[in-house]
């Protein structure tokens, strides 16, 4: 899988937030995406998934242009979003949440990840099958949110600040789990994160955005050789 953005411009209404953003993400890679609040990180993810229209530029998934496709069509092609904050159905049990999302994301060509696979990958959910999602801890809710994003045949998961509200040790644990699963199943990911040190541990590539413009786009090794804070 290759996800590519070329000269992407997107925003809200007539206002553009992104200024010709371009990047390429290859199979199984994790791209850490940094920037201050309002810089355009979430706008980029929303535009990639189709929640915001691309005003200019191209988005390509495996060479196919998808910027004009509906959200539903992009989900069918393997894009997934783990939204910030509320990535679970608070009134539903873990089991019911996984059952209905698995059903609605069933791949006619064979699922890459079924409900049972999610329980195998994230055993914490197996132990809490009957628990209502809204009553679980923040960390467990994020595990469930990640599990829901994996169902079907995901190719690229867009992770929007999954560490919000979690204790630091849980963040490391969650990121390690996410990284293992992505590598194991060749799923690529874009990770928007404020906890830079934790995100850098699992990143293959790093991208920094400032006022809608990409100011750094390189490998993890390149990013480690510079002072990232100069780019904020």
């Amino acid at each position, binding site marked *: 899988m290759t996800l590519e953005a070329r000269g992407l411009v997107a925003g809200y209404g007539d206002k553009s937030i992104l200024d010709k953003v371009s990047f390429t993400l290859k199979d199984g890679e994790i791209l850490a995406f940094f920037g201050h609040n309002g810089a355009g990180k979430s706008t980029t993810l929303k535009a990639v998934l189709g929640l915001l229209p691309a005003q200019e530029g191209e988005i390509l998934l495996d060479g196919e242009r998808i910027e004009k496709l509906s959200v539903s069509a992009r989900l069918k092609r393997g894009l997934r979003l783990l939204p910030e904050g509320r990535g679970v*159905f608070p009134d539903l049990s873990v089991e019911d949440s996984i059952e209905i999302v698995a059903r609605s994301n069933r791949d006619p060509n064979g699922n890459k990840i079924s409900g049972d696979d999610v329980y195998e990958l994230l055993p914490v959910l197996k132990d809490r099958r009957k628990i209502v999602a809204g009553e679980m801890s923040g960390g467990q809710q994020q595990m469930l949110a990640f599990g*829901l994003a994996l169902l079907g045949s995901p190719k690229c998961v867009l992770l929007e600040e999954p560490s919000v509200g979690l204790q630091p040790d849980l963040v490391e644990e969650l990121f390690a789990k996410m990284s293992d699963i992505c590598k194991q199943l060749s799923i690529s990911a874009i990770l928007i994160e404020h906890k830079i040190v934790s995100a850098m541990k699992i990143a293959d590539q790093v991208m920094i955005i400032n006022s809608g413009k990409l100011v750094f786009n390189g490998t993890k090794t390149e990013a480690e050789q510079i002072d990232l804070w100069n780019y904020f």
Partner: protein
Amino acid sequence: MLYLQLVADGVVTGCAIGLVSVSFAYFYATTGIFHVAHAGIYTLCGYVAWYLTGIGVPFPLALLASIACGALVGAGIQATLYRQLDKKGASPLVKLIASIGVLTTLQNVVAILFTPNIVQFDLPWRLARVTIGGLAFSVPQVLVLVFSVVLFAGIVAFSKYTTLGKRIRAVASNPALAEITHLHPQKVFIYVIAIASGLVAVPGVLIGVDQALQPYTSLIILLTAVIAMIAGGIGSLGGAFIMSIVLAVVQSLSVAFVSGRWSVAVVFGIFVVFILIRPEGLFRHKFNRAI
């Protein structure tokens, strides 16, 4: 015995209002739309059954036809009005005003198509009475009781155990996530309004059989149903059903103490006091939709 009979009558009326309340709450909790046009569907379905029985269609078939009619009209309102308003980013207030417009239109369409006058079903068993434990009920009252309890249990079981029921609860609890997990919220809204509108056809027909039909009186029934929904705890179907019965029993008993014309005021007065004491309603239920 008089008080017991008043309680029994109240329970029957409460069960019918309970179905209106539960069906309204089901749609409202899922979509966040204050669908007052529900009262128009209630009226329309009563008249459809009245018309069909008038031309010789057996009552059970007329009831089924009115349920189907309610479901179709409801789905039409969602597909042609609410969905378009959603696409244009309309606020809940705009949707409420649009819904009031649909209610007025439906009431007038009923008056034009059928009659603006009070009408009664021409069914021989309508006035037959049965006595249970010394309490007298009309046959339509017994039907109201049986249908309401069965349908209420049915909708609760549907919501809890079926895939579509769970999908509806998922959309109600997090519509934004439902969109990005491929649950198709707009399709779900159509299913929900069709179910709610089919359900409200039942009290619409049975109360019409028991009492009479008039195109412009359904709003007061909906108002009582909405009060029951709020008092029961928005989002709780059980709360809406129980509070409908409680309010109807209070209203029924009140006629033993005050003139009948004040009974509605008694109910509303009790509601105001109740909601001041327990603003979250009878059953606490976290509800995040805009009201």
